[in-house]
């Protein structure tokens, strides 16, 4: 019998469960998917406008960073723009003032993001679930205000213009070549995320997500693990943000705005929480969609993204990747 017991006390439940599709696909399927993914990545700027392809790469990193927390640690950060944006600014400043080759500047940016993630994470991981989301959102807004006020450094509203794309004198002004220059960094970032998820550390995170009390009883310092995950995620988001800054050759306050955090979450949920690669897919879809919409003459982009988002949350909580994986699973099961 189905009874109508509502359980608001469910606030204690750690992760959006039932979503984590980590389908155990057979090895050859995974290798085939990987190969397809690499081929698509290699071809992308030929099929899409290269600048859009560059954006997709950056957002893919951002989404994967958010999913690392949301899907694999059970923490929904609604303030990840703080890391993406901080890295963008630091990358830009380093590139402008130190004239370093861009990969080093991006690295500096990502490190700065990771450093910022320490105090914010320290405070935020004291809360879980919805509180965590609100607290990260609020702190990110604070970072936004600081960047806005710190005009002497960030150039305020005008944005940090003229971030160089320096790479030992190689001309990378063309986005087409720039795409290929950053592809290895992005793949490295994605591989790092994958490695983290599939490391002993990642196992502990999943344990913490599913049952923090149990993990503590096993001797795992849950707060410190969460904080470490938060910092790692901040670093990867920072990689994306730094590349974004170099990609656009400037940084504006938008990179720190809460709508940017929101967009990252949209990308992840659309792609599929806890799927990692879903975030990459989500980034492709959202960036491409927005690109298309801004030329379409349709005035309400939020209506479309918001609408899609609501649909996903209400009807396809597994997201694109998760739903596809589930479908493939069912088909495979039926054939057997």
């Amino acid at each position, binding site marked *: 019998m189905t009874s109508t017991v509502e359980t608001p006390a469910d606030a204690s439940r750690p992760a959006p469960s039932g979503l984590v599709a980590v389908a155990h696909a057979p090895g050859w399927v995974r290798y085939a998917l990987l190969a397809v993914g690499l081929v698509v990545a290699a071809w992308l700027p030929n099929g899409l*406008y290269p*600048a859009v392809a560059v954006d997709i790469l950056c957002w893919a990193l951002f989404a994967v960073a958010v999913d690392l927390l949301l899907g694999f640690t059970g923490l929904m950060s609604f303030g990840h723009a703080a890391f993406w944006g901080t890295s963008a600014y630091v990358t830009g400043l380093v590139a402008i003032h130190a004239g370093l080759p861009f990969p080093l500047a991006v690295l500096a940016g990502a490190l700065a993001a990771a450093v910022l993630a320490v105090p914010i994470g320290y405070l935020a991981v004291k809360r879980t679930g919805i509180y965590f989301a609100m607290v990260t959102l609020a702190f990110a807004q604070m970072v936004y205000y600081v960047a806005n006020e710190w005009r002497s450094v960030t150039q305020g509203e*005008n944005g940090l213009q003229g971030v160089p794309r320096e790479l030992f004198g190689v001309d990378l002004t063309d986005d087409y070549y720039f795409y290929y220059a950053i592809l290895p960094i992005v793949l490295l970032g994605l591989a790092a995320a994958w490695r983290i998820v599939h490391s002993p550390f990642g196992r502990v995170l999943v344990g913490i997500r599913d049952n923090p009390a149990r993990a503590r009883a096993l001797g795992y310092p849950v707060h410190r693990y969460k904080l470490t995950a938060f910092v790692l995620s901040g670093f990867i988001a920072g990689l994306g943000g730094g590349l974004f800054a170099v990609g656009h050759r400037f940084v504006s306050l938008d990179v720190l705005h809460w709508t940017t955090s929101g967009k990252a979450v949209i990308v992840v949920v659309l792609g599929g929480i806890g799927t990692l690669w879903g975030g990459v897919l989500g980034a492709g879809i959202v960036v491409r969609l927005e690109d298309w919409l801004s030329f379409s003459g349709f005035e309400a982009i939020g209506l479309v993204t918001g609408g899609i988002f609501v649909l996903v949350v209400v009807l396809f909580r597994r997201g694109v990747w998760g739903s596809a994986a589930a479908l493939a699973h069912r088909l495979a099961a039926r054939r057997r």
Partner: protein
Amino acid sequence: GGGGPQSGGDQKLTGDKIVLGVLNDQSGAYSELSGKNSVTAVEMAIADFTAKYGDKAVTKDISVETADHQNKPDVANSKAQEMYDRKGVDLILDVPTSSAALKVADVAKEKKKLYFNIGAATTDLTGKSCNRYTFHYAYDTYMLANGTGKTTTEQIGKNWYILYPNYAFGQDMEKSFSTAITAAGGKVVGKDGAPFPNTSGDFSTFLLKAPGLNPKPDVLGTMQAGAELVNVVKQYNEFKLRDKGVGLAVGLMFLTDIHSLTPAALAGTTYTDAWYWNFDAKNREFADRFQQKAGTRPTFAHAANYSAALQYLEAVQAAGTDDADAVVKGLEGKTVEDVFLRNGKIRAEDHRVVHDAYLAQVKPQSEVTEPWDYVKVLKTIPAAEAFRAPSADCKL
């Protein structure tokens, strides 16, 4: 990848056509000020150009591309590149929001394609961020501040209290205002930077301070823009500062803002406008034509887009080619007269397009006789005075 083939001087037109790109905000804060109606204005310019030259026109194939940059510089960046590279755009127009405007200037420089900025106010476009392919067309912070500050001091009151949003634009405006006021013999008795963005939406702390200053300011100069301006003005009226003898001058105000706030809330307020639709018969004639197409009266941005598109086409016609360098050469130093540009001149030094500006005052509600006719022009500021001298920062 890369851009289309660069045309040499011998080739007339790339692809035998001209494509004008309107890149602006079609959904955000500036969408009514310029937005899609700027496209309409540009289409009018094309029609007028075609009608004028008929078969003698360099080409009959002139089209418009448009995109919404959502006031986001990163979107503006991608869209601008895409317009130049993929959509064959020869000239990008409009681009409000300073950060986006500056970004597109970079793109134009790199792609060596033309860019007429209309919507943005930052003087950096003709200062440290100027470049050979970028022209700043309609207005800038100096023009706004100088016009309003100087003329209001001369005509309305000498003592000022300045309230500005504490970010790049606001700080620039405050500085320019203070300079202009002092130069005109006025005095800034107090100034405050309000938090920006001001989430609480409350400016009462500052507004309450104004009447108590010594000497009491005659004018409150507010540099807030858009929704913040609306908040300031609402609260200015709430605290009845006008009744307490403190007049209002606004740094940056558009016709659409007056419409939002209603003339009743703003009666007596002074500000500088780059163009006003009901200034004279010529403007009015354009405004009537525009209204037929767009269903509303044009803002200065619409008129400026029209003018910019037209002047570009004229320049191409004159040069016989759409090669950017050739067109730039033709434009530099040119004096122009059209519905928007009065006593207009395209300065070669910094690519500032100078023209007459207007100190406007909002009419009392009782004198508003037709929709959108909200202001009277107190003074025409001659082109020579309206804009700053070419900046040393600009190296084209």
